[in-house]
């Protein structure tokens, strides 16, 4: 059962980013490696060297653990990169870039899709 998880929340300010990544890691622990699609403020989770506020777990550390969990399929939406003026080579992980118009095709490739 293939699963796509969309992450649209900024890394800090709420628990949303962490709780979405928790679902990804748990699915991976069940050998159901999900693909991750970062959109909107969610792409900020992929910025390197971010410092976490003391009230939050360090999102960068969870992101860097994805590879160990064999979560290797990471997608980033081009329009979100453009909005924040971020170049793809500035991100902490190797990602595949997709246009907004292609997102629905990406979703269609998976049995399940969770949006956070």
């Amino acid at each position, binding site marked *: 059962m293939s*699963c796509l998880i969309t992450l649209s929340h900024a890394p800090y300010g709420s628990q949303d980013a962490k709780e979405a990544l928790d679902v990804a890691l*748990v699915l991976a622990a*069940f050998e159901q490696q999900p693909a991750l699609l970062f959109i909107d403020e969610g792409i900020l989770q992929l910025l390197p060297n971010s410092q976490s506020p003391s009230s939050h777990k360090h999102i960068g550390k969870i992101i860097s653990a994805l590879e160990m969990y064999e979560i290797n399929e990471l997608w980033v939406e081009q329009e979100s990169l453009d909005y924040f003026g971020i170049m793809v080579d500035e991100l902490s992980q190797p990602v595949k870039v997709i246009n907004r118009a292609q997102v629905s095709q990406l979703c269609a490739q998976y049995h399940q899709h969770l949006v956070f």
Partner: protein
Amino acid sequence: MSDLNTLVPPSLNEAALTYTIVVRCGADQQSQALSAFRFTQQVLSQGHRVLRVFFYQQGVHWSSGFRVMPQDELNITALWQQLSLDYGIELGVCIAAALQSGIVDPQESIRYELGGENLASQFMLVGLGQLAAASVESDRLVSFGG
């Protein structure tokens, strides 16, 4: 004559699917929460199987037995409890999210010496793994809220 409200016994629905429902909307999002309940109710009444309803993020608030509603408003917690009794479905609550929101069962109350418990009956504290396990076994994963 067809009647939309007629219950179809599960054995008569040959196209029955297995569902997992995820409730992520909190107590301040009554409309979404009610949609989640009504959807689940319809899925069951049409003879489909609901493997588990999983309450995550803000959704854990629906499992508090201490919610008191104004008399003219629906008590969505009570609706879930009755649905669970009627159909024997499992109401799983993410234990990490529940503990952070101050929702505990007797076992956790003893573990953390909290001197009280408030998990509503029919609800059960479970790990996030129960969401993963249910999603693997389900034909449909439907999430509400966020």
